[in-house]
């Protein structure tokens, strides 16, 4: 069907779960760049971490009669209705990064991304290997109820071996500010020698926690401070030695891939049902490959 119709510019609707999240803003930029190269147009909308407005954004995209929708669901359960809306409108749907819950019947064309559960698993595997005898952990959770938090946390909980004990857990909403404040209190609660590592659901929180530890002059006590995302500041912290590792979720890469897959599909190409991008564990050892 693509023959001779090169003049047509496809409109692709994109629903990103939170454009105020730096990592996702970064991903969106990469997507725009790819779209320009491929000659398609992206209509990027923001569900602002609210399931209600996610649905509104999808509806508005349908009104605009886009040719395809790339959706980054807020939640594996609560976002299904919005996805079904797209299917019902006979518009091809592509799912980005967050998988729907098992057993769901949403008929999307492809899933492109990484499973957040894997990120949690990799954090746990790293610790299992680094500290075979286990130790006491502090867990910095993101936003309770948000799928990225739940999945990363679940993956971690299932994989971490039982020598480890989570002695404190706080909700820092993904923010450096909250993480630092809570970590400061936690450091007061546990004097030297009582905690061995910090696990955070994202890099911003890991940076905040690391900064609290550094301020308290207790960096040496901690065998590991682990985040997820692989953001630039986190890499710098790993280089500086305040953080020990992060699980790089190639957000930009997954966005680029999604745009490529959708463009292929619209041009009549065949697409797979599933494109899983690997997570990469970044530690001091392989840091140089990723540092700009």
């Amino acid at each position: 069907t693509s023959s001779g119709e090169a003049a047509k510019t496809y409109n692709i609707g994109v629903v990103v779960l939170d454009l105020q999240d730096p990592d996702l803003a970064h991903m969106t930029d990469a997507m725009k760049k790819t779209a320009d190269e491929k000659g398609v147009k992206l209509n990027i909308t923001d569900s602002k971490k609210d399931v209600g407005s996610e649905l509104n954004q999808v509806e508005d995209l349908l009104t605009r009669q886009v040719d395809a929708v790339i959706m980054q669901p807020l939640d594996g359960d609560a976002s299904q209705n919005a996805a079904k809306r797209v299917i019902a409108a006979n518009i091809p749907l592509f799912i980005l990064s967050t998988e729907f819950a098992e057993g769901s019947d949403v008929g999307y064309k492809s899933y492109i991304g990484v499973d957040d559960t894997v990120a949690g698993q990799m954090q746990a595997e790293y610790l299992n290997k680094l500290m075979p005898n286990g130790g006491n952990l502090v867990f910095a959770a993101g936003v309770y109820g948000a799928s990225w938090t739940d999945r990363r946390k679940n993956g971690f909980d299932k994989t971490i071996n039982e020598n480890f004990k989570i002695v404190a857990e706080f909700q820092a909403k993904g923010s450096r500010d909250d993480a630092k404040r809570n970590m400061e209190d936690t450091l007061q609660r546990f004097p030297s020698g009582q905690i061995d590592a910090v696990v955070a659901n994202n890099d911003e929180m890991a940076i905040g926690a690391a900064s609290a530890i550094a301020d308290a002059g207790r960096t040496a006590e901690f065998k590991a401070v682990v985040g997820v995302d692989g953001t630039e500041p986190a890499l710098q912290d790993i280089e500086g030695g305040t953080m020990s590792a992060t699980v790089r979720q190639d957000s930009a890469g997954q966005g680029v891939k999604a745009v490529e897959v959708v463009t292929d599909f619209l041009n009549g190409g065949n697409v797979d049902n599933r494109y899983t991008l690997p997570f990469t564990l970044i530690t001091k050892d392989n840091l140089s490959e990723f540092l700009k």
Partner: protein
Amino acid sequence: MTITMDTLKTKLGPADLKEGLTATRVKRFIGDYGIIILFVVILVFLAAAAPNFLTLNNIVNVVRQSSIIGLIALGMTFIMITAGIDLSVGSVVGLAGMTFALLAPDSGGAFWLPLIAGLGVGLLVGFLSAAMVVWGAILPFLATLATMAIARTAALVITDGQVVSGLSGPAEWLGSGFLGPVPVPVIIFLVAAIICEFVLSRTKFGSHVYAVGGNEESAKKVGISTSRVLFMVYLIGGVTAALGGLVLTARLDGAAPVAGTGYELQVIAAVVIGGTSLFGGVGTIRGTVIGVLLLGVVMNGMNLMGVSSYFQQGVQGVILVLAVLLNRWKSD
């Protein structure tokens, strides 16, 4: 009987029935119809600028999207006319939706049970706010700041922060069904709006709501039970917010404990744009409906035109200021 109102006009002081200057009249006209004019201007602009804006589909879409904020805004209008405010509505949306979602799959055929439980939760939070405002004499801003925190905590604790998913069929119908060509949420919103308009403008209770907002002391002195009126408006506010939460949950086929976060400011903005005063005593349901639709149309239009979401909050702020300035010139 020998003196009619007309002959008396000349006897009255300058304050009474003198005709206004032209400038004053123009101002009044703008004040009275300014929001409608603004609304129409925005509609015309979007019809021209956003290709799919003026389709039946999109119009149904906008109204359906606005119906949740709209439902909450109805109750907020009552509360704000009594010079109160309710910051807890966002949390009530979350808590009531959660209650509904938790009970909906289990209750088998009993479609009404989870509905009633959800609304009951709204009533409960409304009662708590009202009790603090009336019996505790705590300012509404602070009392509902507290209930906002408490209701959100409850929503988080009962599900341990988890999302609840999968409602039964009839519950889903509430969110996604149609009656003829009209989506169910829109019908719920319009019926609720008509009832509220009627109650506020035609009944004794409605009149007392205005009196309490105008001068609570005086209302008390003429024998109005101001505590009853205040209790009623916070209960109405709780129920409409809960109803908004139920519709939201039904629309999404699931409930998150953080659902509705930040709705309070959107709702207050819509109500104020519709001409209700934060000082109380002034406001109508008609105005609120227009305020809600205006905000909804603007958000929809920006999406259709592909405006970056970064700007959306700022644009809302500017519209708010514009509307407040226009409302200034209202007559009386």
